[in-house]
Protein backbone atom coordinates (compact mmCIF):
# COMPACT_ATOMS: atom_id res chain seq x y z
CA UNK A 1 0.00 0.00 0.00
CA UNK A 2 0.97 3.60 -0.47
CA UNK A 3 -0.44 6.95 0.49
CA UNK A 4 -0.69 10.30 -1.25
CA UNK A 5 2.06 12.84 -0.58
CA UNK A 6 1.59 14.23 2.90
CA UNK A 7 -0.65 11.31 3.80
CA UNK A 8 -3.93 13.23 3.54
CA UNK A 9 -6.97 11.66 5.20
CA UNK A 10 -10.46 12.70 6.22
CA UNK A 11 -10.22 14.64 9.50
CA UNK A 12 -11.22 13.00 12.76
CA UNK A 13 -14.46 14.95 13.01
CA UNK A 14 -15.54 13.62 9.60
CA UNK A 15 -15.99 9.90 9.95
CA UNK A 16 -19.60 9.76 8.74
CA UNK A 17 -19.26 10.68 5.09
CA UNK A 18 -22.00 11.35 2.57
CA UNK A 19 -21.91 10.63 -1.13
CA UNK A 20 -24.07 11.79 -4.02
CA UNK A 21 -24.46 11.09 -7.71
CA UNK A 22 -24.33 13.78 -10.37
CA UNK A 23 -28.03 14.40 -10.99
CA UNK A 24 -27.60 14.76 -14.74
CA UNK A 25 -26.30 11.20 -15.05
CA UNK A 26 -29.68 9.75 -14.02
CA UNK A 27 -28.08 6.53 -12.86
CA UNK A 28 -30.26 3.44 -12.59
CA UNK A 29 -30.79 2.12 -9.08
CA UNK A 30 -28.76 -0.97 -9.93
CA UNK A 31 -25.74 1.21 -10.64
CA UNK A 32 -26.19 3.14 -7.40
CA UNK A 33 -26.41 -0.14 -5.55
CA UNK A 34 -23.00 -1.16 -6.92
CA UNK A 35 -21.48 1.96 -5.34
CA UNK A 36 -23.29 1.27 -2.07
CA UNK A 37 -21.76 -2.22 -1.93
CA UNK A 38 -18.33 -0.78 -2.73
CA UNK A 39 -18.52 1.76 0.08
CA UNK A 40 -19.65 -0.95 2.46
CA UNK A 41 -16.47 -2.94 1.83
CA UNK A 42 -14.36 -0.08 3.18
CA UNK A 43 -16.81 0.64 6.01
CA UNK A 44 -16.45 -2.92 7.25
CA UNK A 45 -12.77 -2.45 8.06
CA UNK A 46 -12.71 1.18 9.24
CA UNK A 47 -14.65 3.46 11.59
CA UNK A 48 -15.99 5.28 8.52
CA UNK A 49 -19.60 5.22 7.44
CA UNK A 50 -21.03 6.20 4.07
CA UNK A 51 -24.55 7.47 3.45
CA UNK A 52 -26.11 8.49 0.17
CA UNK A 53 -27.53 11.98 -0.01
CA UNK A 54 -29.49 13.69 -2.74
CA UNK A 55 -27.61 16.94 -2.21
CA UNK A 56 -24.79 16.69 -4.72
CA UNK A 57 -23.26 20.04 -3.87
CA UNK A 58 -23.12 19.36 -0.16
CA UNK A 59 -21.93 15.76 -0.30
CA UNK A 60 -18.47 14.82 0.91
CA UNK A 61 -18.00 12.49 -2.07
CA UNK A 62 -19.41 13.47 -5.48
CA UNK A 63 -19.70 10.78 -8.11
CA UNK A 64 -20.09 11.56 -11.79
CA UNK A 65 -19.77 9.90 -15.17
CA UNK A 66 -18.12 12.03 -17.85
CA UNK A 67 -16.87 11.70 -21.42
CA UNK A 68 -13.55 12.97 -22.73
CA UNK A 69 -12.37 16.32 -21.44
CA UNK A 70 -14.53 17.15 -18.43
CA UNK A 71 -12.66 20.10 -17.02
CA UNK A 72 -10.19 18.68 -14.53
CA UNK A 73 -7.28 18.28 -16.94
CA UNK A 74 -7.59 14.49 -16.93
CA UNK A 75 -9.62 13.71 -20.03
CA UNK A 76 -11.14 10.28 -20.48
CA UNK A 77 -10.29 8.28 -23.58
CA UNK A 78 -13.36 6.29 -24.60
CA UNK A 79 -13.73 2.54 -24.29
CA UNK A 80 -11.12 0.95 -22.00
CA UNK A 81 -7.81 2.79 -21.48
CA UNK A 82 -8.39 4.82 -18.34
CA UNK A 83 -11.60 3.86 -16.59
CA UNK A 84 -11.89 6.34 -13.73
CA UNK A 85 -9.97 8.57 -11.38
CA UNK A 86 -10.50 9.99 -7.94
CA UNK A 87 -9.00 12.73 -5.82
CA UNK A 88 -7.30 12.54 -2.47
CA UNK A 89 -9.02 13.53 0.79
CA UNK A 90 -10.81 15.72 1.51
CA UNK A 91 -11.55 16.64 -2.12
CA UNK A 92 -14.10 13.90 -2.68
CA UNK A 93 -14.37 14.06 -6.48
CA UNK A 94 -14.89 10.67 -8.11
CA UNK A 95 -15.08 10.58 -11.91
CA UNK A 96 -15.82 7.63 -14.17
CA UNK A 97 -15.58 7.32 -17.94
CA UNK A 98 -19.11 7.45 -19.29
CA UNK A 99 -18.05 5.72 -22.50
CA UNK A 100 -17.23 2.41 -20.85
CA UNK A 101 -19.54 -0.55 -21.07
CA UNK A 102 -20.24 -0.88 -17.37
CA UNK A 103 -21.78 -3.94 -15.81
CA UNK A 104 -23.65 -3.17 -12.63
CA UNK A 105 -24.62 -6.64 -11.43
CA UNK A 106 -24.35 -10.25 -12.47
CA UNK A 107 -21.35 -12.30 -13.53
CA UNK A 108 -19.11 -10.00 -15.54
CA UNK A 109 -16.85 -12.87 -16.49
CA UNK A 110 -19.68 -14.17 -18.65
CA UNK A 111 -20.33 -10.89 -20.42
CA UNK A 112 -20.69 -11.30 -24.15
CA UNK A 113 -19.09 -7.95 -24.87
CA UNK A 114 -15.32 -8.13 -24.48
CA UNK A 115 -15.00 -4.55 -23.30
CA UNK A 116 -17.39 -4.91 -20.37
CA UNK A 117 -16.02 -3.50 -17.11
CA UNK A 118 -17.33 -4.34 -13.65
CA UNK A 119 -18.53 -1.13 -12.02
CA UNK A 120 -18.29 -2.32 -8.43
CA UNK A 121 -14.67 -3.42 -8.90
CA UNK A 122 -13.64 0.00 -10.18
CA UNK A 123 -15.67 1.74 -7.49
CA UNK A 124 -13.93 -0.17 -4.68
CA UNK A 125 -10.54 0.87 -6.11
CA UNK A 126 -11.43 4.55 -6.53
CA UNK A 127 -12.94 4.77 -3.06
CA UNK A 128 -9.53 3.69 -1.82
CA UNK A 129 -8.11 6.82 -3.44
CA UNK A 130 -10.90 8.98 -2.02
CA UNK A 131 -9.91 7.75 1.44
CA UNK A 132 -6.18 8.36 0.92
CA UNK A 133 -4.63 5.21 -0.52
CA UNK A 134 -2.32 5.28 -3.53
CA UNK A 135 -1.50 2.46 -5.89
CA UNK A 136 -0.01 -0.81 -4.73
CA UNK A 137 2.27 -3.31 -6.44
CA UNK A 138 0.50 -6.18 -4.74
CA UNK A 139 -1.36 -7.72 -7.63
CA UNK A 140 -4.07 -9.20 -5.44
CA UNK A 141 -4.83 -5.87 -3.81
CA UNK A 142 -7.73 -3.65 -4.75
CA UNK A 143 -5.30 -0.75 -5.14
CA UNK A 144 -3.33 -2.44 -7.93
CA UNK A 145 -3.67 0.02 -10.84
CA UNK A 146 -4.96 -2.25 -13.62
CA UNK A 147 -7.99 -4.44 -14.08
CA UNK A 148 -8.84 -6.40 -17.18
CA UNK A 149 -12.25 -6.18 -18.74
CA UNK A 150 -14.69 -8.95 -17.80
CA UNK A 151 -12.95 -9.21 -14.43
CA UNK A 152 -14.44 -8.92 -10.99
CA UNK A 153 -12.21 -7.93 -8.08
CA UNK A 154 -14.06 -6.49 -5.12
CA UNK A 155 -12.68 -8.06 -1.95
CA UNK A 156 -10.14 -6.05 0.02
CA UNK A 157 -6.79 -7.79 0.34
CA UNK A 158 -4.69 -7.76 3.49
CA UNK A 159 -2.52 -5.07 1.86
CA UNK A 160 -5.54 -2.79 1.40
CA UNK A 161 -6.79 -3.35 4.93
CA UNK A 162 -3.39 -2.70 6.48
CA UNK A 163 -3.06 0.55 4.54
CA UNK A 164 -6.49 1.94 5.30
CA UNK A 165 -6.28 1.02 8.97
CA UNK A 166 -3.06 3.00 9.31
CA UNK A 167 -5.07 6.03 8.18
CA UNK A 168 -8.27 5.46 10.15
CA UNK A 169 -7.91 2.51 12.50
CA UNK A 170 -10.15 -0.52 12.47
CA UNK A 171 -13.90 -0.82 12.69
CA UNK A 172 -14.74 -0.88 16.41
CA UNK A 173 -17.74 -3.05 15.66
CA UNK A 174 -15.81 -5.62 13.67
CA UNK A 175 -14.72 -8.98 14.98
CA UNK A 176 -11.87 -8.99 12.48
CA UNK A 177 -13.32 -11.71 10.35
CA UNK A 178 -14.26 -9.42 7.50
CA UNK A 179 -10.70 -9.18 6.25
CA UNK A 180 -10.26 -11.50 3.34
CA UNK A 181 -7.73 -12.07 0.69
CA UNK A 182 -8.78 -10.80 -2.66
CA UNK A 183 -10.61 -13.30 -4.76
CA UNK A 184 -10.39 -12.49 -8.40
CA UNK A 185 -12.30 -14.10 -11.14
CA UNK A 186 -10.56 -13.39 -14.34
CA UNK A 187 -11.19 -14.39 -17.85
CA UNK A 188 -8.54 -13.41 -20.31
CA UNK A 189 -10.00 -11.02 -22.79
CA UNK A 190 -8.88 -9.74 -26.10
CA UNK A 191 -7.41 -6.63 -24.55
CA UNK A 192 -5.20 -8.44 -22.19
Amino acid at each position, binding site marked *: *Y*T*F*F*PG*TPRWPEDRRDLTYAFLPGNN*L*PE*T*AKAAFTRAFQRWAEVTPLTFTETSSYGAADIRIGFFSGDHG*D*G*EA*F*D*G*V*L*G*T*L*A*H*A*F*SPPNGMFHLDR*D*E*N*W*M*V*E*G*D*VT*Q*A*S*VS*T*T*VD*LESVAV*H*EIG*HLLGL*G*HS*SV*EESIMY*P*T*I*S*SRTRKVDLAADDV*QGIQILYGSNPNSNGSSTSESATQERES*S*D*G
Partner: protein
Amino acid sequence: YFFPNASAIPPSLLPNFTSGSPWDVFHNFTGCHAGEKRDGLNKLKKYFHYFGYIPDGSPNNLTDDFDDSLEAAIKTYQRNFNLDPTGQLDEATMKQIVKPRCGNPDIVNGTTSMSSGKTTSSLFHTVGH
Protein backbone atom coordinates in the same frame (compact mmCIF):
# COMPACT_ATOMS: atom_id res chain seq x y z
CA TYR B 1 -23.81 2.12 -21.09
CA PHE B 2 -24.98 0.16 -18.11
CA PHE B 3 -25.46 -3.57 -18.42
CA PRO B 4 -27.90 -4.85 -15.82
CA ASN B 5 -26.47 -8.30 -16.30
CA ALA B 6 -24.20 -10.35 -18.52
CA SER B 7 -26.59 -10.97 -21.37
CA ALA B 8 -29.04 -8.11 -21.15
CA ILE B 9 -27.90 -6.15 -24.17
CA PRO B 10 -26.98 -7.78 -27.47
CA PRO B 11 -23.50 -6.70 -28.56
CA SER B 12 -24.84 -5.58 -31.90
CA LEU B 13 -26.84 -2.86 -30.18
CA LEU B 14 -23.85 -1.36 -28.47
CA PRO B 15 -22.18 1.40 -30.49
CA ASN B 16 -18.79 0.72 -29.00
CA PHE B 17 -18.80 -3.03 -28.86
CA THR B 18 -16.19 -3.38 -31.59
CA SER B 19 -13.93 -0.71 -30.19
CA GLY B 20 -10.71 -1.80 -28.56
CA SER B 21 -8.49 -0.05 -26.11
CA PRO B 22 -6.92 3.22 -27.23
CA TRP B 23 -3.65 1.59 -26.21
CA ASP B 24 -3.94 -1.45 -28.47
CA VAL B 25 -1.72 0.32 -31.02
CA PHE B 26 1.15 -0.01 -28.56
CA HIS B 27 1.39 -3.68 -29.46
CA ASN B 28 3.17 -2.49 -32.62
CA PHE B 29 6.11 -1.49 -30.44
CA THR B 30 6.66 -4.96 -29.01
CA GLY B 31 10.33 -5.80 -29.44
CA CYS B 32 11.34 -2.19 -30.02
CA HIS B 33 14.60 -1.52 -28.21
CA ALA B 34 16.98 1.24 -27.13
CA GLY B 35 18.49 3.24 -29.98
CA GLU B 36 15.58 2.66 -32.36
CA LYS B 37 13.34 5.32 -33.79
CA ARG B 38 9.76 4.26 -34.51
CA ASP B 39 6.84 6.32 -35.82
CA GLY B 40 4.34 6.95 -33.05
CA LEU B 41 6.64 5.96 -30.21
CA ASN B 42 6.00 9.41 -28.72
CA LYS B 43 2.48 8.20 -27.89
CA LEU B 44 3.89 5.45 -25.73
CA LYS B 45 6.13 8.03 -24.10
CA LYS B 46 3.04 10.16 -23.44
CA TYR B 47 1.49 7.15 -21.72
CA PHE B 48 4.50 6.85 -19.43
CA HIS B 49 4.52 10.60 -18.88
CA TYR B 50 0.83 10.58 -17.98
CA PHE B 51 1.32 7.95 -15.31
CA GLY B 52 4.44 9.61 -13.93
CA TYR B 53 7.19 7.41 -15.37
CA ILE B 54 8.67 10.20 -17.52
CA PRO B 55 8.47 13.08 -15.09
CA ASP B 56 10.15 15.95 -16.86
CA GLY B 57 9.09 18.29 -19.61
CA SER B 58 5.97 18.72 -21.66
CA PRO B 59 4.32 15.66 -23.18
CA ASN B 60 4.15 17.57 -26.45
CA ASN B 61 7.94 17.60 -26.75
CA LEU B 62 8.38 13.83 -26.65
CA THR B 63 10.06 12.29 -29.69
CA ASP B 64 9.82 8.94 -31.46
CA ASP B 65 13.27 7.91 -30.21
CA PHE B 66 13.72 4.96 -27.88
CA ASP B 67 16.02 6.95 -25.64
CA ASP B 68 17.36 6.61 -22.12
CA SER B 69 14.31 8.24 -20.55
CA LEU B 70 12.01 5.67 -22.12
CA GLU B 71 14.24 2.78 -21.12
CA ALA B 72 14.34 4.04 -17.53
CA ALA B 73 10.58 4.49 -17.52
CA ILE B 74 10.04 0.94 -18.72
CA LYS B 75 12.35 -0.46 -16.04
CA THR B 76 10.51 1.39 -13.28
CA TYR B 77 7.17 0.32 -14.71
CA GLN B 78 8.33 -3.28 -14.81
CA ARG B 79 9.41 -3.14 -11.17
CA ASN B 80 6.09 -1.65 -10.12
CA PHE B 81 4.17 -4.37 -11.89
CA ASN B 82 6.39 -7.23 -10.74
CA LEU B 83 7.89 -7.83 -14.17
CA ASP B 84 11.51 -8.57 -15.03
CA PRO B 85 13.10 -5.07 -15.18
CA THR B 86 14.80 -5.43 -18.55
CA GLY B 87 13.94 -2.02 -19.96
CA GLN B 88 12.69 -3.76 -23.07
CA LEU B 89 9.23 -3.78 -24.56
CA ASP B 90 8.74 -7.51 -24.30
CA GLU B 91 5.38 -9.18 -24.66
CA ALA B 92 4.72 -9.48 -20.93
CA THR B 93 5.35 -5.78 -20.42
CA MET B 94 3.22 -4.78 -23.37
CA LYS B 95 0.39 -7.00 -22.20
CA GLN B 96 0.41 -5.16 -18.90
CA ILE B 97 0.67 -1.72 -20.48
CA VAL B 98 -2.48 -2.08 -22.57
CA LYS B 99 -4.66 -3.28 -19.72
CA PRO B 100 -7.45 -0.94 -18.65
CA ARG B 101 -6.49 0.96 -15.56
CA CYS B 102 -7.13 3.73 -13.08
CA GLY B 103 -6.28 7.17 -14.41
CA ASN B 104 -4.41 8.21 -11.29
CA PRO B 105 -0.62 8.22 -11.83
CA ASP B 106 1.66 5.72 -10.17
CA ILE B 107 4.55 8.15 -9.62
CA VAL B 108 5.19 11.80 -8.98
CA ASN B 109 8.51 13.65 -9.30
CA GLY B 110 10.21 10.55 -10.60
CA THR B 111 9.95 8.72 -7.30
CA THR B 112 7.78 5.74 -6.59
CA SER B 113 7.15 3.67 -3.55
CA MET B 114 4.73 1.40 -5.35
CA SER B 115 7.21 -1.45 -5.61
CA SER B 116 8.90 -0.93 -2.27
CA GLY B 117 6.28 -2.52 -0.13
CA LYS B 118 5.19 -1.19 3.22
CA THR B 119 5.91 2.49 3.26
CA THR B 120 4.01 5.09 5.21
CA SER B 121 4.81 7.98 2.92
CA SER B 122 4.70 8.04 -0.81
CA LEU B 123 5.48 10.61 -3.42
CA PHE B 124 2.50 9.47 -5.34
CA HIS B 125 0.51 12.18 -6.88
CA THR B 126 0.26 15.80 -7.78
CA VAL B 127 -1.94 18.35 -6.05
CA GLY B 128 -4.74 17.77 -8.53
CA HIS B 129 -5.41 14.30 -7.26
